[in-house]
C-alpha cells in the first residue's frame, strides 16, 4: 500500500470510531447530537496536553483521556435530560461553538496556534507510523464495534432502544431516562475521546478548526448515510463519505457539494440509511430471501 492509501485508511478508521460513538447517542438512545466534533476535540486536546505538557505516554494517558471525555460528556449530556428533539439539537450546536471558541481563545489550549509537537505512539519501544499506526487504529475500531455490538445485546442497550422509541412508555416500565440517556452520552463521548486521542497522535498537530461545527455535520452524515442505530452503518457511512471524495479527486472543487447532495438525497429518500430497516440494501436482501423460500 502506498503512503497515500495508508493515510486515507487510517483517517477512515479514526473517523469510524468517532462515528460509532455518535451512533450510540443518536442511533441507539435517540438523542440528536449536532456537536459531536466537540467531544472529538476534547479527546484530542486532552491527549495532546497529556503528551506535550505532562509528557505521559499514550498508553498511560489513554484511560485518563477516556475518563475525562466521558465526564465532560456526562456534564454536557445533562441538557438532554431537560430539553428534547429540536432544543437538544440547537443546544448541541451551541456546545460545539462554545467548545471550539474555548480552544481558540484560551492560551492554555494553544489559542489560534493549536498544539504541535505531539509525539508518536510507541509500542514495545518502537514508534508506530504508517502501516503500524493503521493497524493500531483498526484494532481500536474493532474494539469499538465489538463494544457497540455488546451494547445492543445487553440490558442497558435494550433500555436505550426503549427510550428512543417512546420515552414516557419506557419510563412507565421503570426504565430511568436519566440513567440511560447519560449512559449513552458517556459511552458515545468516551468513544469520541478515543478517536480524538488517536487523531492527535496521528496528525501530531491539532488546532480548533479540526473540531468545528462542519466536522459534526460530516460525522452525523456518516451515521445517517450508513444507517442510524445499525451496528455497521457508521463504519459503512464513514467509508463511503471519506473514500468517494478521494476516488473523485479530480473533482476536488465539488467534493463538499457532492457530500452534501449525497446527504440530502439519503435523508430525503432513505432516512433510515443504507443499512437501516427500510434501507434499499436490506429490502433487496429481504425480497430475495422471500423469493428463495418454498
Amino acid at each position, binding site marked *: 500500500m502506498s503512503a497515500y492509501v495508508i493515510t486515507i485508511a487510517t483517517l477512515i478508521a479514526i473517523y469510524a470510531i468517532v462515528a460509532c460513538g455518535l451512533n450510540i447517542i443518536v442511533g441507539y438512545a435517540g438523542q440528536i447530537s449536532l456537536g459531536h466534533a466537540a467531544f472529538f476535540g476534547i479527546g484530542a486536546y486532552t491527549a495532546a496536553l497529556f503528551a506535550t505538557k505532562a509528557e505521559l505516554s499514550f498508553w498511560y494517558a489513554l484511560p485518563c483521556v477516556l475518563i475525562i471525555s466521558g465526564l465532560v460528556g456526562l456534564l454536557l449530556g445533562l441538557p438532554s435530560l431537560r430539553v428534547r428533539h429540536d432544543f437538544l*439539537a440547537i*443546544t448541541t450546536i451551541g456546545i460545539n*461553538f462554545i467548545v471550539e471558541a474555548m480552544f481558540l481563545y484560551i492560551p492554555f489550549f494553544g489559542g489560534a496556534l493549536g498544539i504541535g509537537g505531539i509525539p508518536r505512539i510507541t509500542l514495545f519501544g518502537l514508534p508506530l507510523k504508517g502501516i503500524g499506526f493503521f493497524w493500531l487504529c483498526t484494532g481500536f475500531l474493532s474494539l469499538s464495534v465489538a463494544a457497540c455490538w455488546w451494547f445492543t445485546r445487553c440490558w442497558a442497550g435494550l433500555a436505550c432502544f426503549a427510550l428512543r422509541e417512546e420515552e414516557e412508555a419506557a419510563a412507565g416500565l421503570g426504565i430511568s431516562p436519566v440513567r440511560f440517556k447519560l449512559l449513552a452520552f458517556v459511552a458515545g463521548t468516551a468513544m469520541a475521546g478515543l478517536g480524538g486521542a488517536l487523531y492527535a497522535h496521528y496528525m501530531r498537530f491539532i488546532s480548533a478548526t479540526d473540531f468545528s461545527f462542519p466536522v459534526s455535520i460530516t460525522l452525523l452524515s456518516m451515521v445517517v448515510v450508513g444507517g442510524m442505530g445499525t451496528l455497521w452503518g457508521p463504519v459503512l457511512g464513514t467509508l463511503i463519505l471519506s473514500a468517494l471524495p478521494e476516488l473523485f479527486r479530480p473533482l476536488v*472543487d465539488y467534493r463538499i457539494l457532492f457530500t452534501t447532495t449525497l446527504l440530502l438525497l439519503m435523508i430525503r429518500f432513505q432516512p433510515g440509511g443504507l443499512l437501516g430497516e427500510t434501507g434499499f440494501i436490506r429490502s433487496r436482501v429481504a425480497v430475495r430471501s422471500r423469493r428463495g423460500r418454498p
Partner: protein
Amino acid sequence: MHLFIEQLLNGLAMGAIYALVTLGLALVYGILRILHVAHAAVYTVGAYAGLYLFGATGSLLLAALGSMVLCAALGVAIERFVYFPLLKYPPYVPLIGSIAVMLAIEELCRLIAGPYIQTFPARLPFPDIHLGPVTVSSTLTAVYGVTAAVLFLLWYITSRTELGLAMRAASQDMPMADAVGINSHFVITVTFIIGSAIAAVAGILVGIYYNQVYPTMGTVPAYKTLAIIVVGGLGSVPGAVIAALLLGMAETLLIGYAQIPLPRDALAFIAMIGVLMWRAEGLLGSK
C-alpha cells in the same frame, strides 16, 4: 458619550438585521415545527441576486423586488421538495435535510460566484443625518426604516387580515384548521413566501451595510438565528424580534466595553443555554 450612542445605534442595526433573518425562521417553526436552517442560505442567495440585479438594472428597488421573488421561489421549492415529504419523520430528519440544503446552496454560491468577497456598490438616495456629534449614516437609517416597515407589514398581515387568521389557525392546530376549511398547504406556502422574501431584503441590507457579499455570509446567521428563536421562545415572532434586538446590542456593547475572552458569536449560544436551563419556554414563549 456620543461614542456610546453610536455603539448603541450600531448594535440596534445589528439587532434589526438579526430580527429580519430570524423572522422567517420563527414563522416557519411556528407553522411546521421545523428548524429551517436553510433559511440562511436563502438569505445568501438574496444578497447575491440583489447584487447581480442591481448591476444589471442599476435600480435598487428593482433589484430588491427581483431578489424577493427569486428567494420566495427558492423557499417554496425547499418546502415542497425537502420538508413536506419529511414531515412524517422525527424532527431531526428534516433538520438534517435542512442543513444539507444549506451547505449545498452555500457551495453552489461559491462555485457560481467565486469564493471572494464582492462589494455592494449601491448608494442610498438620502444623506447622512447629523445630530450634534452623533452621525447616523444613511445605511443605518435604511436598516431601521426597512426593518420597521417589514415588522409593521408582518404585524398587519398576521393580525388584521383573513390570511393572517388562517396562518395563526394553521400554526395552532393544522388538522383542525384543515377541518374548518383552511387550505393549510396554501398557508404553509404563503408562510415560506413571506419568510423568504424578508430574508432577501435582509441579505441586500447586510450587503449594503457591510459592503460585502460572500458565499459563507449565511453560516454564522444560520446557527445564531437558531439560538435567537430559542431565547425568544420557539415559534413566537415578537419574542424572536425582541431577542434579536437584545442580542445585537449586547454583542456590540459587550465587545466594545467589556473584556471577555470569547468571540462574539459564542455569546448567543451561552445566552441560549442559560435560557434553556432557566426558562425553557423562552422570553415570550408559552409552555
